């Protein structure tokens, strides 16, 4: 068969239902962008951030006694006279001064008692309550938020990185990509792959999205790479790509375009021993990611809110290894020009033994979902009823804490 006739054959096959153009994702049409101008970035901190070490309640008379080894040699940065910041977040202090940084203390999801990272993260990302067994919900709350808004384009939300992000998974279409990923195919290979995938929806949709994104992200005027070169690049950068700063930079680039919501995760907050060392390594990573977002977003930063959340806090008392074990009440970290910041939100429960949850953990006095809900309402105008019934089913929103300026 000559090349020409083979191509002709392929063209025929393509018309039979697997053409590039026939697939809605394959076309490079411009998507209708969301009416929103605001940007939301959700960062999942996996492993259980110790909120009591990140934002230290130095004004609480009981605090110091719980943390003799952790507080030794660690310089706290005063926030409001009562709370002080971990020195690893030092680079964020200018944001605090500018009102672009805030915290919510003593918050949690409804998850209680088993203190499992994995169930804790599932519930955090599902946005569900006690009534729903872990793993029963297959979509994340950020995806359900998109489902409540008609007419959004697939570009509206971006899940960034190589790790699965359940918070954005679900029926509403979102984009998934990692800054290290490339896909260089000859037009012929592309058509043949389309044919091989066309009866398998999982492969068909994932490949279509991949090809579309790879096309869209290719820098115009650059010499196209060969498949071998692309694989080599990818192989080299795949380890580095997990770096929070590169995820932030990639997210910011999308947010400068049509994307309004981006999510990624930063792993490694589980600090059972030598917490000073681990948290000392992790806090600058999160700081740099936030600062990178600010720098790359430029003027858009004023319309941006970053929410960093974690599956649970840690024990009030340090353990026998200068670390902390899995706890309950935790911390949300908020940043962005859209904030009415320089405040530590939340209701402080106190740290005397009777005030602790099960005489062990910081008592959660607020729900992560309620605070996130108010942020989404004030930024995007999401109705209270949508928040309470579908995005965070059963949540009690309570009063508006006024996080958004």
């Amino acid at each position, binding site marked *: 068969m000559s090349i020409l006739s083979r191509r002709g054959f392929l063209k025929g096959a393509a018309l039979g239902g697997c053409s590039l153009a026939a697939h809605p994702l394959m076309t490079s049409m411009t998507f209708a962008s969301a009416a929103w101008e605001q940007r939301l970035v959700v960062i999942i901190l996996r492993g259980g951030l110790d909120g009591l070490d990140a934002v230290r309640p130095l004004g609480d008379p009981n605090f110091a006694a719980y943390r003799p080894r952790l507080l030794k040699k660690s310089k706290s940065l005063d926030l409001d006279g009562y709370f002080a910041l971990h020195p690893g977040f030092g680079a964020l202090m200018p944001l605090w001064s500018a009102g672009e940084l805030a915290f919510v203390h003593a918050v949690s999801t409804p998850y209680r008692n088993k203190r499992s990272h994995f169930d804790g993260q599932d519930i955090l990302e599902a946005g569900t309550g006690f009534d729903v067994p872990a793993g029963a919900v297959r979509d994340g709350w950020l995806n359900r938020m998109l489902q409540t808004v008609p007419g959004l384009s697939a570009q509206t939300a971006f899940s960034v990185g190589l790790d699965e992000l359940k918070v954005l998974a679900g029926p509403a279409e979102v984009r998934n990509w990692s800054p290290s990923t490339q896909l260089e*195919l000859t037009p012929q290979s592309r058509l043949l792959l389309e*044919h091989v995938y066309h009866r398998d929806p999982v492969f068909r949709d994932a490949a279509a999205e991949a090809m579309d994104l790879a096309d869209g992200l290719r820098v115009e005027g650059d010499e196209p790479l060969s498949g071998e070169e692309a*694989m080599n690049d990818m192989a080299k950068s795949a380890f580095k790509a997990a770096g929070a700063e590169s995820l932030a930079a990639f997210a910011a680039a999308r947010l400068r375009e049509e994307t309004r919501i981006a999510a990624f995760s930063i792993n490694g907050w589980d600090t059972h021993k030598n917490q000073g060392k681990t948290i000392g390594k992790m806090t600058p990573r999160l700081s740099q990611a936030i600062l990178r977002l600010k720098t790359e977003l430029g003027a858009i930063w004023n319309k941006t809110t970053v929410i960093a959340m974690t599956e649970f806090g840690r024990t009030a008392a340090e353990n026998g290894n200068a670390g902390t074990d899995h706890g309950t009440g935790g911390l949300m970290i908020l940043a962005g020009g859209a904030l009415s910041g320089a405040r530590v939100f939340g209701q402080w429960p106190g740290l005397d033994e009777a005030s602790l949850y099960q005489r062990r953990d910081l008592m959660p006095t607020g729900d992560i979902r309620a605070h996130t809900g108010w942020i989404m309402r004030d930024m995007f105008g999401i109705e209270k009823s949508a928040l309470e019934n579908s995005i965070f089913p059963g949540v009690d929103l309570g009063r508006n804490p006024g996080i958004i300026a």
Partner: protein
Amino acid sequence: MPDISTYTAIRFGTGIADNQNPASGPVEMLANLEQPDRMTDRFPTSGFADRLKMSVNLIKLRKARRKKNATEEIQARFYAQRKEIRKIAFSDTLNHAARAIYSPDGFRERLGMFWADHFTIRQRGDGYQGSQAVYVTEAIRPHIAGRFADMLRAAVTHPLMLDYLDQVVSVGPNSKFGKAKKRGLNENLAREVLELHTLGVGGPYTQKDVTQLAELFTGMTVDRQTGFKFQPNVAEPGAERVLGRKYGGWWPRMSHIEAALEDLALHPSTARHLARKLVVHFISDTPDKGMVDDVAAAYRDSEGDLMATYGALLNHPLAFQNFGQKAKRPDEFLISAVRALEIPAKSFLSLKERKAGQYFFGPMAAMGMRHQRPTGPDGWPEELDAWLSPQGLAARIQWSMAVPGQIRKPLPDANAFLKVALADAASPDLTWAVSVSETKREAIGLIFASPEFNRR
């Protein structure tokens, strides 16, 4: 519908190779498992005892070289030790992978991968790079066809596990050592033993059980000379109560810990947890309840005998139905690809580190699996969606198109290779696409990138 031997090779094995006959069915698969583990002899790794010596030496030399009066000779010895560790780590890693690639008994290899993931570790200590291969060789593979309780004990007491989940620093607060040094409990390992290794997170345990088991576990440490050691002077004195049962007395002993592990292994919740995991891993992300029940019952009735458990799994009618409900993990994908390409073992083992990174470990990271670096002790995800994301699939496609031509020269005839790699699992769509490809490279790429090669 594919033949049973296609299922044994792809669903339960490490893929098809032209020079290996896949097992004909459950009887042969189980009979193979009764045989000795020949792959550990053919592809040996170092042992933990060697690694420990090197690690201790490395730490000693690192201290010495930082001193003001450190000689050039100390510096040289430090670099030599570091180099030796790196070389052994890489050799262990390749040998470990070679077992799965070249074994005639793919089911044993897949079970090894399954249990290694169930008892996930991640290297922490200085000088233990690539030591996952050592851990699997010592703690997992000897027990694959034995009793779960034995594997549990071997995994939970292995120095690399004690190190990974912080047991090495956990101290009974009322022990002699704990009182003198003001050290205390670390509940990391105890929690994961209950949540991940035995009962499962839905199991009938509370925070109290976690704390009590953590107290019971105190005393298990790693001695820098001898490896695992039970040290009574760091163990919490007194008995502990776990799930209502009392373990130990005033004087702490390792046998108390062993008794608790044995009971946990035989607990009905453990039977159910393991049965579900096996069915999810081998058959479907949404497991059939009846199948899970059957496997759990076999586990319970045999008191945790793994052969009986696998028998129930393999003899269930659903074991050889509905091909392709699961996605191969990136490591399984690469192993089965190298297996199908029949790269000679000698060439694979003589790969340089840079090339191995370029062809395998780098691409594997791009597919979402950073080699030996799972994010947590729960191991790698099972769900198809976790692996077949746009970015994950893009990496598989790019690997398929780019790498086979670099590692197998010349590439085989594509139409013949399709039969080798997929036997009767190849779809008409793929067969057609391969037949009209313009180049061998593209045709082989399509085979590896196809749904049928990535599913099992």
